[in-house]
């Protein structure tokens, strides 16, 4: 019988990008402590992402990118998060915008916006969350106002990673004040526009370099040419092209944080020797059990992430086919809680719970050392805590999954 590696083996392109990411992550790690301590945006890291070609990772080659897919992105983000989770957060948001850009950008927008986004040395920010709806990302209060020459956007977004540092912001708002919350327009707003006003300085408990402050788009004038797709397609397009990579990307990031904590814990328990017994922590059954449990959870989660990433890649091919026939918006609106989106919801909940558990166990076996500022696991404890509240929060996702199974209308329907 021949070897059957289908579905298990990475293809050489995946492997190549993972090597690139590993190399970048090693360099990110050198600056990660400072980024965390000072709450500094990882500018050096962003330069590395640009020079290594990672900023255009998921953009098709014919549109000037590297031609990678969501599975490639998951592999890359997992590596980057092991080096610097703040940088990986900003990169995940950047990639979440790039699949959308690649799918919707017109020829003119490819030249004017997409190509510079890959080369300008800055990441994109996706500013979705609003103070009113919080983690319920499907609801947007703010809206665009039509002007003869384009649009005026007055929108306050409550969190946006890379804010104040982004080359461009992708901003979803309602198409006008007379349409419902799911008739969304998507705008690309230049980061240098003086009416883009980040609020304060990010001082988070973790992911301290992610510059995730609120940002006020204060009556920003946006030309018509900076709207992506049709005026009301934004909701469907975010579902089709942003949500899958965003949820898989965040999951891969939590996986990377968990892996970093676990690796640190394994090294620690081998090295730490009690003077009274002359034995290392690794000889204790309790510790062996923790290590085993962590390994099981990490592997389970990694396989789910790869599986959903692969499903998402297949879905993108289908979405493109439907988009070509001008059917995508209607099909997504007609299938608001399709099982595919439920898989996408599951993957983030699973990765988030796994990572919190693994990091907590790593912390436990590293003991007092891990409680001290500057310890690798101490940073993981703070970084990973964002996972369950980042939108949609794990609680919300579980309700969405349950409603789909039970045949109950989703909150964004009707």
């Amino acid at each position, binding site marked *: 019988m021949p070897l059957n590696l289908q579905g298990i083996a990475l293809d050489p392109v995946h492997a190549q990008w993972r090597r690139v990411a590993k190399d970048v992550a090693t360099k990110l790690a050198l600056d990660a402590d400072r980024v965390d301590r000072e709450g500094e945006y990882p500018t050096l890291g962003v330069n590395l992402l640009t020079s290594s070609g990672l900023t255009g990772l998921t953009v098709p080659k014919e549109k000037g990118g590297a031609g990678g897919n969501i599975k490639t992105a998951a592999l890359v983000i997992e590596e980057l998060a092991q080096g610097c989770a703040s940088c990986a957060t900003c990169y995940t948001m950047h990639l979440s915008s790039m699949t959308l850009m690649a799918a919707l950008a017109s020829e003119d927008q490819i030249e004017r916006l997409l190509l510079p986004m890959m080369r300008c040395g800055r990441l994109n920010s996706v500013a979705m969350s609003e103070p009113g709806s919080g983690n319920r990302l499907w609801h947007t209060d703010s809206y665009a106002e039509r002007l003869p020459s384009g649009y005026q956007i007055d929108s306050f977004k409550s969190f946006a990673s890379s804010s104040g540092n982004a080359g461009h912001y992708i901003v979803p708002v309602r198409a006008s004040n007379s349409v419902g919350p799911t008739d969304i327009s998507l705008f690309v707003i230049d980061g240098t526009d003086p009416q883009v006003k980040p609020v304060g300085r990010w001082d988070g408990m973790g992911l301290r370099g992610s510059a995730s402050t609120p940002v006020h788009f204060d009556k920003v004038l946006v030309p018509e040419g900076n709207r992506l797709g049709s005026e009301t397609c934004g909701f469907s397009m975010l579902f089709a092209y942003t949500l899958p990579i965003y949820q898989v990307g965040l999951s891969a990031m939590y996986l990377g944080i968990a892996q970093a904590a676990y690796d640190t814990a394994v090294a620690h328990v081998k090295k730490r020797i009690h003077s009274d017994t002359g034995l290392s922590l690794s000889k204790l059954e309790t510790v062996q059990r923790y290590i085993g449990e962590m390994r099981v959870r990490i592997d389970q989660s990694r396989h789910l992430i790869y599986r959903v990433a692969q499903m998402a890649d*297949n879905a993108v*091919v*289908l979405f493109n*086919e*439907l988009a070509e*026939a*001008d*059917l995508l918006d*209607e*099909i997504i609106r*007609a*299938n608001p809680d*399709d*099982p*595919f989106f439920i898989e996408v919801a599951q993957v983030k909940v699973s990765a988030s719970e796994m990572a919190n558990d693994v990091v907590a166990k790593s912390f436990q076996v590293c003991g007092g050392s891990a409680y001290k500022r500057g310890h690798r696991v101490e940073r993981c404890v703070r970084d990973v805590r964002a996972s369950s509240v980042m939108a949609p929060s794990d609680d919300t996702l579980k309700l969405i999954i349950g409603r789909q199974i039970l045949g109950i209308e989703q909150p964004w329907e009707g």
Partner: protein
Amino acid sequence: MNSLPFQSLYDCLAEFQQRFNAHTRVKKLVVNWDRSIVVEATDSASVATMMIKELHVTEVLSGAHPDTSNPIHLQAGESALIRIFSGDYNPAHALIEGDLAVFSSEKDKVKLEAITMVIWGL
């Protein structure tokens, strides 16, 4: 398992033809996509060919039609095929479950999946 809604694969495909032709959304997907699709049961002698031409399933023929070049070939157990074409079993799921085999170009596979999405749901 529920009893099958059709006695034969041919009857089932004939009914599918009506549904396909009445479906306005699916028409947008089959512009310039004239194909023949051979549907073959692996556990009985049932074989039928569906001809898609100018946005319609124009004919359902009994057997693998000899006139067709490079047809798309679908293989499954007869009951699975009947469940699929009567709308009970999403072919995308049948594919993942190993209940359905599709022999075609990659481009045609994508087209079939997209048609599936429109007719059966995602």
